[in-house]
């Protein structure tokens, strides 16, 4: 079964510095999509970045980038120049034809001023 593992329940970063959140997944499928979602306290979940498994190039969205290692089944999120507004719960998620969306347990990111 497809599983998504986020091994860091909590992370902390100093404002303006860089932090990397880890995610690994288990699948036997070749075609799938990976996502990072952000859920701020008491606010709705929003998409941060996504990666198609067939693309070798790592996705980038402004200060957010991923390191996608397909063979290792690893999908980490790097946040550069961290801002106070980045503080949130971050969920890694997997989607394929068979699996509509499977989330990891989440990583709570704290940003220190």
């Amino acid at each position, binding site marked *: 079964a497809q599983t*998504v593992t986020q091994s860091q329940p909590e992370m902390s970063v100093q404002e303006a510095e860089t932090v990397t959140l880890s995610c690994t997944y288990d699948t036997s499928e070749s*075609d799938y*999509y990976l996502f990072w*979602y952000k859920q701020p306290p008491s606010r*709705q979940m929003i*998409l941060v970045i996504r990666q198609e498994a067939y693309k070798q190039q790592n996705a980038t969205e402004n200060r957010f980038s991923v390191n996608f290692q397909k063979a290792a089944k690893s999908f980490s999120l790097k946040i550069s120049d961290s801002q106070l507004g980045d503080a949130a719960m971050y969920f890694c998620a997997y989607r394929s*034809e068979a699996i509509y*969306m499977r989330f990891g*347990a989440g990583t709570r990111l704290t940003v220190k001023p």
Partner: protein
Amino acid sequence: DAMVIQNPRYQVTQFGKPVTLSCSQTLNHNVMYWYQQKSSQAPKLLFHYYDKDFNNEADTPDNFQSRRPNTSFCFLDIRSPGLGDAAMYLCATSRVYSPSYNEQFFGPGTRLTVL
């Protein structure tokens, strides 16, 4: 702005008393999802609608039902809420069924308390 709206944001019900949560969307998306998210846990998919086609996750309890009277609205009915059903319930939408259009847009959630 196009969006996903959930009402109410907070719902309190009594043990065993039926409750209905509402979701509406102005995105005109054909797929709507209901997730259950317990405290400090990942969202768990309960079921989804692809247009009028209902798809239940295998481990979703029978106590949970859903209705989608039209494209814009979807309801989650909990027939006899138990204490273990206290959670945040998230509604999400996506444009088409295929993973190639795969971003899901989430509502703010309804926090359900069961007394």
